[in-house]
């Protein structure tokens, strides 16, 4: 079966997010004073073959710890679904 893993990676709370801070300032300058915080992350969409959904998730999690996420500074959230759904 073919699955799609949608991975959102962002910096941990407390780790300086230079881009997020800069965008926050810019939004404030534009008059969006209500904005409290901006965090910038990255989105990866991975298409993979797996026996079932839980196997696809395990594979994607292994990829995160092997390469995609640096757990010293980053956290992630992962959504796995059958492709085409």
């Amino acid at each position: 079966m073919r699955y799609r893993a949608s991975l959102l990676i962002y910096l941990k709370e407390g780790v300086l997010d230079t881009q997020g801070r800069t965008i926050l300032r810019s939004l404030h300058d534009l008059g969006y004073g209500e904005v409290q915080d901006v965090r910038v992350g990255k989105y990866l969409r991975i298409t993979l073959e797996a026996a079932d959904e839980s196997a696809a998730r395990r594979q994607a999690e292994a990829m995160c710890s092997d390469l995609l996420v640096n757990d010293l500074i980053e956290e992630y959230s992962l959504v796995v679904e059958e492709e085409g759904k």
Partner: protein
Amino acid sequence: MKVAVVVFPGSNCDADVAHAVEVTVGASVEMVWHASEFLPAGTDLVILPGGFSYGDYLRCGAMAARSSIMKGVKRFASSGGLVLGICNGFQILTEAKMLRGAFLPNRTLSFICRPCALRVERDDTPFTLRYKAGQVVRFPIAHHEGLYYLDKDELDAMEKRRQVVFRYATPAGEVTDEANPNGALNNIAGMVNEGGNVLGLIPHPERASEPVLGSVDGALMWQSISEWIKGGGAH
């Protein structure tokens, strides 16, 4: 002294560092492509040069850290071999977990390229024998992700183990926030592993190795390593 300079796709300081070790200490240099799994026999020093390996995609150094040659580099380091990572090479060493820490974009929001004063914290490593602790040296810096980060507990433990070798400082040798170009925690510009045989360094000693370049402070690093190897310090 036999030096292996590892070349990744996107490395761009490989030829400069090879030139620097050749002209300053007469080293014989072999360029090693990242896809190889083995280092040349008899290697005394491995250099991971600066540049933009793998286009800095995903995270600086992330993909280079997982390339074939790094298996050989890890084996070499675990048997006591000397490994020096400069700029992107330092980022690769942290991504390979050969040194603790990670790099974030400079707090200035800009790429910084200029000479920089550094205080030498240790003169008892193979890389810094010819310096004096407390001495101020001038190496160029050229980076966008130079903010060294490690969580506080680990950072304190690392400081206690005296792993910091170079800090950003004023020309008078004061370690201040104003002298910190990128926001690196504790002004860290260079550090060693617990064994002292792996050094990561954000500034570029190879760009300060000949009078024509405006500083020869970097030549002392090549002389230190050469002296240490000659003294039988080799693994």
